[in-house]
């Protein structure tokens, strides 16, 4: 296999992982697939996939705009790769967003539901419009392949290139900056990034990052196809990138020194200050200083290293702004789950495969990277066999194998635990409440292994509805929290009873002791045994519940009302004294005057626990 084919096999494998995680996300939802949470609602997919992804596609509008408007014909070779890169960047960001939003089938809603004051509304519209512009710019590239459409393609190139380029810059200026506007309204962002000019920072950095991505591409793609890179042209592109990045750096300094004054935070030694220094060092300082050295500027290796630093730096910057720098304020932790990485990687791999397909199939690179002699026209009868590869045979099967293998490995690794506990909590609980014989599946310790709890049997054994509910839906655990199984089932091998036969046998002399309780000549059972009170004086049978007013008769525990009154009131009185809140000890705090009896309990339990 050649370089490009090895890369394609790897990409197919990652795409397979992506497909499996997409299925997982669609079936089980975001909670099972991602590590997102209420305090961290945006993660890898939004921060890196969408926000950094759109910035990485910015090379398209910058280069087509500049080259077409200023007629820089020397750089014309950059235009088509820039268009296809932007198409991939925006396309993958839009796909990423599709799976990131909770209701993917409503992604078209911003077209119909307008809310013109929202930055995201503007971004949504601009991305849709710019994807249209990119498609129009890409159309002649496709049409050229077909003899019949060639004249139309030539017409489009001649007359539409300039207006489309200008339109692209107009739209992109808006949404690249508006992506920064998103973070003007998030005060939980650390002061080093909570900037009033975040939109300008995003715009300038996107321009620099976008051009850097194209520059990297112009070294990686020829390497894949064993062709030389056009280093002199890339050196002058690198110079333009440096100017843009220094402009960004200046804006950034103005921001932290004069506008927000958060520069003092840099010396605080917090991890945010370290992130700030690292981010600026990677994205601007190190690469731009390195590019001053002629040996770096004029070699492909040097340029590629600087491009890698810049791309890493800005992807880091975007993810810091869109989430990492909010973690301290929201008091939460977040690291993407592997399935988040899997889905993100899968989408990028898909974009990469489409990119390589386009590079091989259409006249994007000049001179063309894959010679015509390598690709004889396909015989008509095999045309449908390998359309994704456009080349049937050994390679197709390797790609497919990698794809299936990737998907299989991902399915095997999917966090079945979180997936399985979804729905059981809600659906089974509802069912158990609805029917007498409902069985709940309870994962009490959340280890992924469920206990089948026969709710109906428990209701029956404890005296039926509604009196039995409060035995487990305990009053000292407010509302819908329940007593754990161990609250009653202290011994796995004995029936639920407060009478311990073993203990009596042991203390009375083992096998010699039966007659002490069971009369001779009748079957030995609970019914035929002595009553407890015959041996035990009543006060010894009283359960140790503080403040209980009713004594146990021996075989039963005290009623829950008494148990609860005993448990609640003593503590309420203590709190009322300690915290000077007389309300705590008053009956009406728990019992409303207008309701009584079972309803009073219900009002204390909050209704949620007592089925109606």
């Amino acid at each position: 296999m050649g370089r490009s084919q090895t890369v394609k096999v790897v990409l197919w494998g990652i795409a397979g992982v992506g497909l499996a995680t997409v299925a997982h996300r669609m079936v089980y939802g975001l909670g099972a697939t991602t590590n997102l949470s209420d305090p961290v609602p945006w993660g890898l997919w939004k921060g890196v996939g969408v926000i950094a992804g759109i910035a990485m596609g910015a090379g398209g509008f910058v280069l087509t705009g500049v080259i077409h408007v200023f007629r820089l014909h020397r750089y014309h070779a950059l235009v088509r790769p820039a268009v296809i890169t932007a198409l991939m960047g925006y396309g993958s960001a839009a796909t990423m967003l599709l799976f990131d939003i909770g209701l993917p089938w409503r992604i078209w809603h911003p077209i119909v539901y307008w809310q013109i004051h929202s930055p995201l509304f503007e971004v949504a519209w601009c991305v849709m419009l710019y994807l249209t512009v990119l498609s129009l710019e890409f159309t002649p590239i496709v049409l050229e392949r077909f003899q019949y459409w060639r004249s139309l393609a030539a017409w489009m190139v001649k007359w539409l290139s300039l207006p489309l380029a200008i339109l692209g810059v107009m739209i992109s200026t808006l949404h690249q900056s508006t992506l920064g506007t998103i973070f003007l309204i998030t005060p939980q962002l650390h002061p080093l990034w909570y900037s009033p000019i975040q939109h300008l920072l995003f715009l300038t950095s996107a321009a620099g990052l976008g051009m850097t991505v194209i520059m990297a591409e112009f070294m990686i793609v020829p390497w894949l196809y064993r062709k030389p890179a056009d280093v002199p042209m890339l050196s002058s592109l690198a110079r333009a990138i440096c100017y843009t990045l220094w402009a960004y750096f200046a804006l950034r300094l103005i921001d932290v020194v004069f506008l927000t004054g958060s520069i003092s935070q840099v010396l605080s030694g917090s991890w945010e200050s370290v992130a700030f220094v690292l981010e600026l060092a990677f994205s601007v300082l190190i690469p731009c200083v390195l590019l001053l050295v002629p040996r770096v500027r004029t070699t492909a290796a040097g340029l590629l290293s600087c491009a890698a630093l810049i791309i890493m730096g800005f992807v880091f910057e975007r993810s810091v702004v869109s989430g990492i720098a909010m973690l301290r304020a929201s008091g939460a932790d977040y690291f993407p789950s592997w399935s988040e990485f899997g889905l993100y990687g899968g989408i990028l791999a898909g974009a990469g495969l489409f990119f390589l397909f386009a590079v091989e199939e259409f006249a994007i690179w000049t001179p063309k990277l894959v010679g015509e002699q390598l690709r004889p026209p396909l015989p008509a009868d095999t045309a449908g066999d390998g359309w994704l590869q456009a080349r049937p045979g050994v390679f197709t099967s390797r790609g497919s194998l990698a794809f299936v293998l990737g998907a299989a490995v991902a399915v095997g690794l999917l966090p079945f635990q979180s997936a399985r506990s979804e729905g059981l909590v809600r659906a089974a609980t509802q069912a158990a409440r609805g029917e007498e014989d409902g069985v709940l599946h309870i994962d009490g310790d959340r280890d992924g292994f469920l206990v089948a709890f026969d709710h109906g049997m428990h209701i029956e054994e404890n005296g039926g509805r509604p009196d039995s509910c409060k035995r487990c839906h305990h009053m000292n655990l407010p509302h819908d929290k329940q007593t754990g199984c161990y609250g009653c089932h202290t011994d796995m091998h004995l029936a639920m009873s407060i009478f311990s036969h073993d203990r009596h046998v042991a203390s009375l002399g083992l096998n010699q002791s039966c007659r002490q309780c069971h009369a001779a000549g009748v079957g030995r059972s609970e019914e035929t045994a002595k009553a407890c009170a015959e041996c035990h004086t009543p006060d010894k049978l009283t359960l140790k519940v503080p403040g209980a007013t009713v004594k146990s008769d021996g075989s039963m525990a005290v009623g829950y009302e008494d148990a609860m009154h005993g448990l609640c009131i003593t503590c309420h009185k203590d709190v009322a004294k300690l915290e000077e809140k007389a309300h705590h000890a008053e009956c009406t705090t728990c019992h409303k005057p207008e309701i009584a009896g079972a309803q009073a309990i219900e009002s204390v339990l909050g209704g949620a626990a007592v089925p109606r």
Partner: protein
Amino acid sequence: MSKKAILTDTTKCIGCNECVAACKRANNLPPDVPRRWHKGDGLSSRTWTAVIRRPGGKFVRKQCRHCIEPACVAVCPVGALKATDDGPVVYDQEACIGCRYCMLACPYGIPRYDWDLAAPYIEKCTFCTTRKDKPGIPACTEVCPTKATVYFEDRQEALAEAKRRLAANPKLKLYGDTDEIGGTCVLYVSDIDLSFLSYATDLGSTPMPKTIAAAIHSTPFVFTGVGLALTGAAVGVNWVVARRMKLQAMQSAQQEEAPVSEESGPSEAPEADGPPTSSAPSPEGQQEPGAESEES
């Protein structure tokens, strides 16, 4: 139109959780279990209000503040969240796409998400506008045994009552007046610091939507401005290149007679050092992309 209000007095709250139970009953919320994605403040997609215990035996009820100029409403790209004229901030789940920007933008971190569902929605206090039996009357305020949380039909009355309490007890502080992001319909009177309820310790008096208003509302001007500037530049460059070619043609035609004076005359000539056939790459490569970055 006058706004509704809820006034919560933390000095009166005994932490009995009656309000939480009433909220669950009124809004038909299913039982809750601890989940990985909960924030730990008691709120979740199935629990819209919670009583938080603070040091010193103090209790603070957390719920949506129903801001008068809410951040969540300003950022929602499809207008699923709306601030009604009488105060409550309500949610239309038919429009929501699930972008979760409201969760990011809310300075109090109130909106929660159905992370466990395949078709999830945003969940938050509705001021009982969706309540079946008594729409618009917050159930939490009906059950409070100590009248620690009270419903007012007019926010001004609630403010007046709060100020009366403040006058009686100088240790108290009012939260939710207009000096807090433009005011909220859920007001607090407290003898303890309530800044833990919001992300930033001091949110300031500017309503949250104002922070993005300037950038968002300049959109049409930026759009047309960039368009005009680029079209102008394209026309200018085109004109310069055409003139340059014309001059070159004239120059080659009249090469013998007077070649020098005309070429250096026009002031636009220095910019146009890149005719299509030119082979001087480096100054061109420096100038033009540099010019672009200033423009964008």
